[in-house]
């Protein structure tokens, strides 16, 4: 690329992944808006793009853009950590195009074909109809091949270059991340067994391996953006890994309360998932503590300037610490005990948690990575925020918080009316949905969704233009 300041091809490849991730992020928000509109106006696109189709694309796009941005983040940080060019760049490029093309085909089939007859062919070619991992089986296999290639590159680079603590954690984590996906590829007539393994993928991704990934990325960010001491950061990272896996792996029990599995999962799920917020608190403290410490060291030297080398990225990293703690920690804790979950399971409460947790824990940090890439590509030493960065951050973070608040209130009404008063029947479900407090929540969710979507365009405009701004230190 012309005018690029990137010395490593690995970083160049990372920008491809980030670009595609940002596009899919937009698709996620667009189809989320369609689904949110259907709650308010049920006739909207009825039997054209039904809620089920819009929602499937909404959550699949979410997973896909995050996986793309995660792979991109690894390609970005590898040269900095290992000190060498990533091994297998050619393979990485081929895999990028294969992955991107597969995703485009999968989404087009979702949109155009939508549903198939009740046979195995539909599972192979259209979709598997299992929330979050709907991708048809051919795409499952493609994803496994792509991820194995990526892992080969990571391992080959980690073993050839300097294997830092961060790279070591990533190597172990990405292998688990890929291996767990295999648990969700089978078919069974037994829905209890089906959901048992399905949760192995979903839970062990988002409440274990992805969280550890975020921990590693936050560690990298602290070192590169505020010059935190590697030894301290990596010690924190190992503590976080112990806490995240120690609570998260058995915290899976909170998905096994009601799917046909034995009662002992009540105790196991309650105990370990109640511990899950602890590492998130630790990560939050870690980021703020390091920031204050490094700023303090700078002041002690008599320097008045900020210690942060990339303001917008660091803002997103701090929002990650807050959002992860709030969305995954607090909102997860709300309904993690079986005594509460008996009534909240499968209501908008879950949806409120899902929105703030996915956004807070993952979207924030990955957007931060986009800004780091813009900084690197433009050869900027200290990157300052623009008006657009501030608007984008406020609109997106505020929008998601607003959606979460609205969904929480709607969920509360649903729990009380549909579940407690009506006993969860068809009639009870619609009695809850018709409640004025529920529908107001859905209106506000749509409004805040629009704010988020507009914020997305400001974000893209900022990412495309901030590198050319003149108030940075180059």
């Amino acid at each position, binding site marked *: 690329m012309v005018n690029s300041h990137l010395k490593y091809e690995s970083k160049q490849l990372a920008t491809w992944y980030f670009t595609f991730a940002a596009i899919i992020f937009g698709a996620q928000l667009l189809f989320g808006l369609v689904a949110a509109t259907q709650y308010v106006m049920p006739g909207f696109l009825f039997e054209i793009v039904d809620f089920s189709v819009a929602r499937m694309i909404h959550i699949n796009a979410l997973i896909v853009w995050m996986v793309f941005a995660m792979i991109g983040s690894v390609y970005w940080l590898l040269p900095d950590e290992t000190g060498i060019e990533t091994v297998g760049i050619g393979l990485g490029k081929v895999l990028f195009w294969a992955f991107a093309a597969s995703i485009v085909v999968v989404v087009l089939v979702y949109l155009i074909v939508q549903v198939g007859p009740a046979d195995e062919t539909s599972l192979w070619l259209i979709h598997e109809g299992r929330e979050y991992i709907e991708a048809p089986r051919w795409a499952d296999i493609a994803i496994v091949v792509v991820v194995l290639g990526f892992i080969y590159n990571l391992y080959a680079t980690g073993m050839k270059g300097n294997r830092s603590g961060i790279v070591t954690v990533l190597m172990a984590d990405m292998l688990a991340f890929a291996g767990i996906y295999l648990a969700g590829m089978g078919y069974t007539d037994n829905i209890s067994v089906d959901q048992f393994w399905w949760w192995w993928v979903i839970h062990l991704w988002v409440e274990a391996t992805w969280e550890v990934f975020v921990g590693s990325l936050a560690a990298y960010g602290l070192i590169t953006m505020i010059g935190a001491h590697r030894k301290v950061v990596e010690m924190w990272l*190992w503590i976080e890994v112990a806490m995240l896996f120690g609570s998260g792996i058995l915290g899976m029990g909170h998905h096994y309360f009601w799917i046909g599995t034995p009662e002992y999962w009540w105790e196991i799920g309650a105990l370990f998932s109640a511990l899950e917020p602890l590492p998130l608190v630790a990560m939050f403290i870690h980021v703020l503590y390091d920031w204050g410490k490094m700023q303090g060291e700078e002041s002690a030297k008599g320097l008045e300037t900020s210690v942060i080398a990339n303001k917008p990225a660091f803002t997103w990293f701090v929002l990650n610490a807050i959002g992860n703690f709030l969305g995954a920690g607090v909102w997860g804790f709300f309904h993690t005990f079986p005594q509460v979950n*008996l009534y909240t399971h499968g209501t908008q409460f879950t949806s409120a948690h899902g929105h703030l947790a996915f956004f807070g824990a993952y979207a924030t940090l990955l957007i931060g990575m986009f800004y780091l890439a813009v900084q690197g590509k433009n050869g900027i030493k200290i990157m300052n925020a623009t008006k657009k960065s501030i608007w984008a951050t406020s609109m997106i973070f505020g929008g998601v918080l607003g959606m979460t608040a609205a969904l929480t209130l709607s969920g509360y009404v649903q729990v009380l009316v549909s579940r407690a008063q009506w006993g969860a029947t068809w009639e009870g479900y619609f009695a809850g949905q018709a409640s004025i407090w529920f529908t107001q929540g859905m209106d506000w969710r749509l409004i805040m969704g629009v704010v988020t979507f507009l914020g997305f365009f400001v974000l893209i405009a900022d990412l495309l233009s901030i590198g050319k701004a003149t108030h940075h230190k180059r």
Partner: protein
Amino acid sequence: MAKKSVWSDNRFWQRSAGWVTGFASMLLIWLTFDTIPQIMLGSDEDLQQGVTKRVPGPTVINYKITYEMDTKRGHEIPVIGGANAEGRSSFQEKETFFGRDDWSEEEAAGLLHLGKLGSQTKNCMNCHTLLGNGAYYAPDLTKAWLDPAWGPNGPMQAMTGKNTKEEAMAEFLQFPSQYPTHARMMPNLGITPEEAKGLVAFLKHMSSIDTNGFPRNFGKIEGAVHGK
């Protein structure tokens, strides 16, 4: 330089992370080996011999299923074929399903297979919840078979003009937009008569799964709000 402490030693924390992760993983795998046999599909022989399974065999569609409070366990459980003296499944009382109560193991398994496949290929889970998991745009299907709305005096059965619960459900599944109950409607998913039969068998089977009392008080509350 300050004296080195084990608490600030990266090797110590790295090893701790390894041990904690390993221990948690082993415990999860061990529990999985305990859980999976308990949730395997039962057989017709189990039902005939009165063996209660958490997930009964497909021929459970030949039996009457209800959802009753179990005082010992403190929550509701599926009761198959009528209750015995302890209030648990007696496996005695049969119930016709599409006119028959003698579906063979092979036939019933075929229906369940078709229904489970259909539940995935028709994307049920991206509007409904199944066992409480899925999307929240439509009612939970865990115990849909037991929903009074589909029963003899229920509005859904009356609306379709059918005489049995299974026929009413099958009719609705094939032509959902002909039977709108609310502004929010189920779309037409091209479900064939045979697929509809399979889906209803899948729903009846799902209602027989022991879900530890989820959902609570299902179909038990009458006149709770506005005297409905």
